[in-house]
């Protein structure tokens, strides 16, 4: 049986990858996918910890997180599509209407 | 009666905003007069006792006010000068509704500053008075007022926010129950009396006390003002409305000396004692430096600003010397310089009304407006401490007291008296005497109200220059009391 540490480490790697993706990728879709990756890393960690503590609460939490992810997908795609149909790009750098 | 005196002007201000235009003047003048009357009544009754109420109980913030001693004098003189200023504003400014309202609103702030015996309350009034001053500048100011305005506000807030921190610190480190200066008893629900200790009953330990004092000092030094925090002053006065009305209020707003006296001295005695030489040096330098700068000014308002700054140097010198005589003198000076400095600002206003500029080099006004020249001259004499006028008493006793503490610094400061004579007389001479430039418009002399506006302060200046007793009766015990508190604190923390 693999130890909790291994799972957590794996989830950490996934999370780091997602973070890097968010920071470096320039396409809205890719950033968004990275976010999803982070969410799933969180799910993995939750399940691992739930097993370590031997209770089910963590797994129900995973369910909820999955739902949240789905909702985010729905809304995020809507926004991205809306923008894409206005201007043929989803590149974050091209969104320069609002100057910081 | 006291609360009425404090808040009457604010009510009047709100009233002025609502009543129809033609009554505004009457309302304003009446209320200022009433305030002054109240002040005098309190003076005759020898001051009021302390009045304490909870304001924000959980935080130990109280509404505790008292008008006696020094505070009373300041309050009365503030009321008086506000009255004068309002008079002149009514005469000079077309449709003065807003200006009057602001003056009144500011008067409340000032009276509150002098009356409050609670640090947070003091802070509140202190900031409250700032807002009308800013508004006056914004609405009636000159072309480059925004710069002056931002400068003024930034300096003030910079000081006062640090003061806020040290206020928080004083209560926190001294462990007092309230922010009130003097403790008081509250009747609990079960009827028993419980004593809530005030700040003066605790002592802030060193070295924290030094830091807190510095925070407090910053705010006060801005408001004194003390070099190098005086930069806002000349611009403020220069950009204000040419009729010196807002300047009068600004002069009254220079409460730094008072704040140091009433709060810093009892709360931070060790710190003040430690910093005494530095501060005295700074004060003396301020006085001399201001006088020197004033010498080279060609704008009456800047000139007066620097003159006032130089006076403040004296005041600071007196306070920092921690010597009874000097402090009494400082308070005396601080109180009465309002009279003649304010009056001088007003006279500048009249001058500007007549010749359309505040330049110090229009010659020969004297030839056509003799009375105005004379009164201005007299006021100048008061300002440069000619014996027999109020200014002399203050400056002399400051020097006298300070000399016993720091002879050399005092000697340097003493030079200011000469410098003052120099700048004052030069400016006066180039304006009023000398040859009248050809083709200049004829200048009317004083008439009616203006006599009153310049004459009354002068009269008072002369009166208190000759017969100081009534003022001293109020000042001396207060000073002794404060010094006593300071001494106890010193004793409590050797």
């Amino acid at each position, binding site marked *: 049986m693999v130890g*909790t540490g291994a799972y*957590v480490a794996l*989830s950490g790697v996934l999370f780091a990858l*997602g973070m890097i993706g*968010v920071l470096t990728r320039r396409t*809205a879709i890719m*950033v*968004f996918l990275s*976010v999803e990756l982070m*969410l799933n890393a969180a799910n993995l*960690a*939750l399940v691992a*910890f*739930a097993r*370590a*503590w*031997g209770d089910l*609460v*963590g797994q129900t*939490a995973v369910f*909820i*997180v999955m739902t*949240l992810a789905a909702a*985010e997908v729905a809304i*995020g795609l*809507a*926004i991205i599509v809306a*923008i894409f149909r206005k201007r043929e790009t989803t590149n*974050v750098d091209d*969104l320069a*209407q*609002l100057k*910081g | 009666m006291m609360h009425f005196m404090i808040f009457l002007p604010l009510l009047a201000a709100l009233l002025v905003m609502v009543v129809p235009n033609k009554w505004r003047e009457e309302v304003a003048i009446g209320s200022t007069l009433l305030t002054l009357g109240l002040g005098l009544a309190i003076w005759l009754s020898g001051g009021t006792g302390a009045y304490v109420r909870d*304001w*924000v109980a*959980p*935080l130990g913030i109280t509404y505790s006010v008292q008008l006696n001693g020094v505070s009373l004098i300041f309050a009365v003189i503030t009321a008086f000068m506000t009255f004068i200023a309002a008079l002149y504003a009514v005469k000079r400014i077309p449709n003065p509704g807003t200006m009057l309202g602001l003056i009144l609103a500011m008067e409340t702030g000032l009276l509150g500053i002098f009356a409050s015996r609670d640090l*947070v309350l003091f802070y*509140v009034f202190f*900031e*409250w008075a*700032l807002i009308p001053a*800013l508004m006056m500048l*914004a*609405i009636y100011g000159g072309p480059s*007022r*925004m710069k002056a*305005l*931002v400068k003024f*506000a*930034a300096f003030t*807030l*910079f000081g006062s*926010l*640090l003061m*806020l*921190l040290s206020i*928080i*610190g004083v209560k*926190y480190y001294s462990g007092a129950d309230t922010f009130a200066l003097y403790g008081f008893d509250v009747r609990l629900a079960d009827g028993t009396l419980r004593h809530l200790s005030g700040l003066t009953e605790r002592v802030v330990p060193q070295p924290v006390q030094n830091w807190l004092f510095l925070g407090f000092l910053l705010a006060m030094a801005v408001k004194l003002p003390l070099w190098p925090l005086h930069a806002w002053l000349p611009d403020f006065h220069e950009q204000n409305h040419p009729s010196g009305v807002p300047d009068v209020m600004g002069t009254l707003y220079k409460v730094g000396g008072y704040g140091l006296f009433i709060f810093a001295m009892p709360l931070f005695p060790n710190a003040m004692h430690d910093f005494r030489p530095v501060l005295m040096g700074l004060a003396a330098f301020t006085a001399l430096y201001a006088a020197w700068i004033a010498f080279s000014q060609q704008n009456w308002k800047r000139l007066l600003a620097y003159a006032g700054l130089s006076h403040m140097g004296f005041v600071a010198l007196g306070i920092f010397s921690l010597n009874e005589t000097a402090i009494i003198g400082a308070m005396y000076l601080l109180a009465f310089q309002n009279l003649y400095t304010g009056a001088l600002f007003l006279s500048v206003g009249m001058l500007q009304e007549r010749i359309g500029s505040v330049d110090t080099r229009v010659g020969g006004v004297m030839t056509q407006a003799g009375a105005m020249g004379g009164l201005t001259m007299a006021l100048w004499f008061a300002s440069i401490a000619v014996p027999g006028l109020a200014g002399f008493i203050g400056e002399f006793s400051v020097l006298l007291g300070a000399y016993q503490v720091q002879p050399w610094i005092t000697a340097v400061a003493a030079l200011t008296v000469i410098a003052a004579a120099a700048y004052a007389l030069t400016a006066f001479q180039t304006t009023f005497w000398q040859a009248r430039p050809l083709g200049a418009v004829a200048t009317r002399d004083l008439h009616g109200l203006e006599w009153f506006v310049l004459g009354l302060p002068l009269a008072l200046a002369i009166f208190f220059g000759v017969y100081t007793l009534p003022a001293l009766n109020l000042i001396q015990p207060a000073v002794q009391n404060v010094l006593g508190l300071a001494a106890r604190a010193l004793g409590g923390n050797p």
Partner: protein
Amino acid sequence: MTYTLPDVNFLPLMPILFVLLGAIVSTVGGFNTSRRNVTWFNIAMLVLAGLSMTSLLGFGLWNRDLSAFNGGVRADNVALMIGGVIVLGSIMSLLVSLDTAWRARVSFPEFDAMLMYAITGCLLIAFSGDLIVMLIGLEIMSLAGYVLATLQDSRRSEESGLKYFLLGSAGSAILIYGIAFLYGATGSFNYAGIAGRVAEVLNPATVNAAADAATTVALAPNNMGILVAGALLILAGFSFKVALAPFHQWTPDVYSGAPTSISLFLSTVVKVAAFAGMLRVFSGALVDAPAWHSVLQWLIAATLIIGNMAAYFQTNFKRLMAYSAIAHTGFLAMCLLAQPSAGGPALVYYLLTYTLMSGVAFAIIAALQRNESGLSIGDMRGLFYRHPAYAVALAICLASLAGLPPFAGFFGKYLAFQAAFQNGYQWLTVLAAITSVISLVYYLRPAMLMFMPDRTPAREYAHGQRPPTNATVLLGVLGVILLGLIPSLWYNFAANPGIWRLLAGIGQ
């Protein structure tokens, strides 16, 4: 295994249910009636929710400290007070939207629906007794917020929506990961449970062997590390939500890009709710967890400097308000550094005043702007002579934002400073004081410009003054003045230390 029902009790949820009802009605009924009716109905629902949180009505929740669903939902006084602030801000934004939404081309029932859903989420955060509930509330709020920011069919708002969405979702991802770690470290999602376990983790001597000793031991070596990591991750996630530097980049773009009545909502209600979450988690669950204080103080310092500096250079008033929102985040977060009994009341008080102040400011922008890009500061010159009432109101609110007494903003700042000062963060308070001098300057510039007479023709929308907006402004200004003169009105409710002890989970 046996299935035991949680203690089901919908009474503590009553305010939330009111709001939810409004949301559903505006979702479904939007097809049958006009948007105006829907909005009025929602306002009524919000008022009901607000009343139900007081003790005025018979069924009021005040002082009853109810909890339900195994402590998942807790209607203690803290929740009620913050909920009151949320409801107030929401009412303000709805009123303003009545006037300005049709100009912003967002005047359809979905607007109300989304707003109400967002409010539901906000309240859920405030009422949460449990990380999961908090998370759900947060997500409902954020998702609805993304939609709101994108609702207007314009490039500006879509862009702001996308930025908000990308950064916001990244923030929630981090937050969720942090929650996972917290669960891993403490084995509980409940605030009280976490607080208790944190104590055990800190001094393992008190670990009772009976309670799943095996797992505790299994996790013991990295327990502390996981705990700290979780706390910091959650901190980062929340920093996204409340816009603490360096996670604040989305804020100015979103607030200035979204329609103004929505910026009002986002910058007040949403921020309040996020702070409620922070209060619950950091002052409640993690109150004696290590390491996050020291990180938070640096975040605050950065926020204060960046927010105020950036605001100083703005030329558009709406954008200035956005940056000032960041700056105020810094001041607000100072309260979290203190002990709950000191910081909590300060935070609650400051949140209320902040909502009122910036609510009024945004309301006036919304009323007077020509288009959704807001007012440029130059255009405000001489406003006093065109819209005197608005000018005075705005001046009062700006003075209050700058922290000038006798307005409420001063006491808010004072309390925040005191809270941080008394917990040994003097340097931070000094920094805050200096930065708030800067803030004074940039608040002062528009405030004073309004009173300077000028001859140029008006550049703002002429017909801005409408009854609902006036009501909002009046409400805000009265609140600011009253709370400034008599802080006890609101502060005394919060000052009772008992409720904060409960917050810290000790009362459980």
